[in-house]
């Protein structure tokens, strides 16, 4: 088989949605009769079908690579690396992508919505997500990662005329891009440590990397990226606000795919970082905290999608903590921890199925009743029986009840957490007892909000006539996708081991490559029934009992939430941070940007003199060599006295005219200096220029402000004095020490020798100006020309003040 040619094809498939996104606007514009979504649906379906064909390969522990070099000199390439883990994610992305597109065809109105941009964003996102999970190159992984952030931003802000959508989009952008940048830092550190961008090669070097000084920094930076994307504590706050997106987007991005990019990242990098105790503590600890936090606050919400958002946060925390626990298997042979990784991936699939379905149902309810407020809903069971069935299946699976897939993974989760107690490294034996307790309490709340979600919506008294719309069952097309997901929920419960063999075990193998030779070595068989001796069973029973009690008494303990002061919530913190940084920055720039040139000159001169003087003395460069000085002549000294007197007069002059005259005096005595130091050409030029510039001063005299018009205070005068003195001292020091330390002799001897023979001239200055170094002269002529034209322009082109202010408006 010509492997290369075939392999080359599948990295290009990542870009299939991207290419299709270019075509979508044309389809939208020119084919009006058919909903654009039908064309788009082809893409994920084809991809899903294609990627299914990789299952036999990865089932045996194999992998496929296809690569296109992008920047070969830097080692950056688009790589599609498909092993168990990336295939699992790829199938989730394409599979749920197909269902979501199908659902969106019925959800998004053909006439009212701008479908062109919707599907462009969605396809863009699909490419980005496929790229994230298949990239083996950290740089392109980051590229696609940011593309998910951007497309998610576009999708959240899809209804951009609403304030809340824009706020949510901005918030998610800020947080995920912050994490993305941190992650880029981690990747760069990793590439310095391992001298490669390839994740596979990094994994191969993993044992050497642990002792590297950058290891912990890289670990924390990459975890920051993963935690922000996967909405872990305390970065979860963007996810509930992202619920302003259209429901298909919430279902796809914010439950099944994008928020799992962080999970993917943690899973992918477990072989590198998993041996570190920091990793285990952070991933497990933050995961559990998020799990508890999300489930606790989910009950507080009144918006259906907000409940689901908090539930997503909490379930992601669950998966995260299982991945952390799975990393423990590097330190102990206890089978329980290998089990944790299996459970994590199993729950990942389960969560994608039931949460996708639940979001779609929430969208249907919104669509059919006109509200998502759980306080207004109720008694929809008999009106929307199909939706109710799907919602019930999803919720019970989320709560962890049999016969739904959530039960299996929840039970495995509880058992892993109980096992953590016995782990003896890294002080887990002292704190370990907390893990099962937190996990169990969080599961109780999960059970409660699952019941809360489904029962408050569908049971109870019907307030049907008060709803904004007359509710009725959704069209069947809209229900197809959630029904498929719901049936998956049940099917997976009955055949977990088929799924395990096909998909999960290869994925576990990818997360822990050093522990197993092939997926078949993973000795895990998921059972729904472990007998009465199993801890998980009794914990589940307790969860059901306590959770039901909590549900029945919700009105009694809900005031508990009011105990948390509104000012102390994380959202408040985010808002305060945004407001504070804006205010602080404004204050900062207002403090130093006064708009006065005087102030800026002050900064520049102070900085210049301080740095130069400091460098002179730190480097011990201040040397005065008296021998190199020429003898002081009498006329030189006398002329210097005249020069100093004139300068003093310029500074202390009371009238502008006197200052100009004194300035002329300065210029003429400088000309005299040129005479004394034997530079006739300079003296000539200086005299002419001085006369002209004095005349120019007089020409502009009428328009110049009176001296000391600013009414400077004593303080600014003192500051100015200090600064000017220090600049003077600085220049003097530099001049003295540079004169005293000439490293190489001057080249002027060459000019003297060749001025007549080579250039045929007698005046050495003129020959240098027009012959040896004529280029400088050319551009000085240009400077003069520009100055002349600019003066002419300023005088002639007078734009009146009124016009300019009009333009500024």
């Amino acid at each position, binding site marked *: 088989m010509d492997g290369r040619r075939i392999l080359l094809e599948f990295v290009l498939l990542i870009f299939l949605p991207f290419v299709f996104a270019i075509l979508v606007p044309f389809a939208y514009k020119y084919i009006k009769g058919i909903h654009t979504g039908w064309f788009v649906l082809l893409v994920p379906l084809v991809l899903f079908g294609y990627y299914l064909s990789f299952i036999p390969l990865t089932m045996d522990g194999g992998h496929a690579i296809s690569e296109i070099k992008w920047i070969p000199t830097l080692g950056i390439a688009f790589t599609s690396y498909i092993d168990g883990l990336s295939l699992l994610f790829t199938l989730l992305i394409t599979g749920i992508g197909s269902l979501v597109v199908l659902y969106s065809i019925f959800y998004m109105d053909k006439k009212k919505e701008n479908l062109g941009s919707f599907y462009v964003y969605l396809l863009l996102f699909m490419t980005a997500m496929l790229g994230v999970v298949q990239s083996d190159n950290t740089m392109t992984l980051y590229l696609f990662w940011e593309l998910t952030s951007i497309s998610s931003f576009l999708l959240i802000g899809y209804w951009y005329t609403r304030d809340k959508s824009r706020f949510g989009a901005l918030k998610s952008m800020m947080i995920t891009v912050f994490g993305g940048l941190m992650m880029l830092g981690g990747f760069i550190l990793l590439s310095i440590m391992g001298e490669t961008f390839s994740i596979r090669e990094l994994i191969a070097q993993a044992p050497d990397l642990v002792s590297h000084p950058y290891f912990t920094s890289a670990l924390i930076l990459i975890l920051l990226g993963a935690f922000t994307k996967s909405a872990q504590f305390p970065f979860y706050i963007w996810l509930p606000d992202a619920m302003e997106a259209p429901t298909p987007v919430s279902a796809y991005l914010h439950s099944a795919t994008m928020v799992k990019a962080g999970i993917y990242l943690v899973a992918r990098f477990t072989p590198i970082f998993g041996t570190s105790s920091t990793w285990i503590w952070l991933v497990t600890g933050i995961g559990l905290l998020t799990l508890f936090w999300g489930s606790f606050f989910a009950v507080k919400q009144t918006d259906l999608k907000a409940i689901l958002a908090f539930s997503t946060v909490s379930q992601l925390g669950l998966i995260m903590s299982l991945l952390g626990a799975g990393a423990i298997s590097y330190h102990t042979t206890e089978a329980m921890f290998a089990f944790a990784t299996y459970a994590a991936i199993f729950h990942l699939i389960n969560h994608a199925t039931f949460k996708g379905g639940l979001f779609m149902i929430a969208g249907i309810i919104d669509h059919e009743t006109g509200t998502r407020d759980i306080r207004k809903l109720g008694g929809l069971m008999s009106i929307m029986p199909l939706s109710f069935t799907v919602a019930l299946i999803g919720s019970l699976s989320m709560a962890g009840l049999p016969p739904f897939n959530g039960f299996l993974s929840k039970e495995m989760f509880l058992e892993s957490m109980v096992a953590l107690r016995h782990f003896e490294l890294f002080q887990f034996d002292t704190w370990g007892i907390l893990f099962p307790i937190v996990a169990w309490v969080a599961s109780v709340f999960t059970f409660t909000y699952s019941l809360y979600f489904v029962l408050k919506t569908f049971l109870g008294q019907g307030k049907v006539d008060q709803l904004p719309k007359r509710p009725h069952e959704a069209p069947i097309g809209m229900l197809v996708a959630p029904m498929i997901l719901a049936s998956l929920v049940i099917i997976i419960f009955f055949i977990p081991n088929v799924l395990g063999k096909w998909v999960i075990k290869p994925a576990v193998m990818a997360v822990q490559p050093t522990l197993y030779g092939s997926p078949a070595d993973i000795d895990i068989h998921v059972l729904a029934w472990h007998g009465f001796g199993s801890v998980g069973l009794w914990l589940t029973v307790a969860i059901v009992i306590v959770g039901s009690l909590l549900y029945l008494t919700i009105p009694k303990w809900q005031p508990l939430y009011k105990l948390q002061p509104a000012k102390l919530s994380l959202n408040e913190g985010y808002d305060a941070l945004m407001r504070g940084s804006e205010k602080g920055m404004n204050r900062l720039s207002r403090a130093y940007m006064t708009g006065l040139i005087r102030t800026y000159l002050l900064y520049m001169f102070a900085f210049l003199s301080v740095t130069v003087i400091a460098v002179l003395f730190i480097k011990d460069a201040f040397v005065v060599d008296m021998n190199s000085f020429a003898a002081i002549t009498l006329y030189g000294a006398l002329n210097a006295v005249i020069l100093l007197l004139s300068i003093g007069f310029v500074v202390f002059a009371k009238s502008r005219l*006197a200052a100009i005259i*004194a300035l*002329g005096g300065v210029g003429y005595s400088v000309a005299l200096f040129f005479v004394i130091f034997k530079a*006739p050409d300079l003296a*000539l030029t200086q005299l*002419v220029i001085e*006369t002209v510039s004095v005349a120019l001063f*007089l020409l502009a005299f009428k328009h110049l402000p009176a001296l000391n018009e600013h009414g400077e205070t004593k303080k600014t005068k003192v500051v100015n004095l200090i600064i000017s003195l220090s600049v003077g001292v600085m220049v003097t020091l530099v001049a003295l020490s540079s004169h005293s330390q000439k490293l190489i002799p001057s080249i002027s001897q060459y000019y003297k020798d060749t001025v007549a023979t080579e250039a045929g001239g007698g005046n050495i200055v003129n020959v240098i100006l027009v012959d040896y170094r004529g280029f400088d002269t050319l551009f000085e002529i240009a400077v003069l020309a520009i100055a002349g034209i600019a003066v002419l322009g300023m005088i002639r082109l007078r734009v009146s003040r009124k016009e300019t202010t009009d333009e500024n408006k």
Partner: protein
Amino acid sequence: MNIFIWVCLIIIFLSMLGTLIRVFKGPSTPDRLIALDGIGVMLISIIALLSIVFDTIFFIDVILLIAIMSFIGTVSFSKFIEKGAIIDRDTHR
């Protein structure tokens, strides 16, 4: 010879200092202007004497130039004091 030039230089310098005092003190602008004109003439003398000291003819140009410049400068200043502007606008347009 040398002593003669030195004495000349010192005398001119002293008179230059005297005229400078006039430049500084004023009291009116024409006083300053006349003093400045005087300084120009003294500059010419100083440069001429210095050329003798340095034994060079290259500064003769400078002497001529100062003479012209000093004249132009004094005239333009005078015109400025008289009219408040140096270059007249064409008023017949």
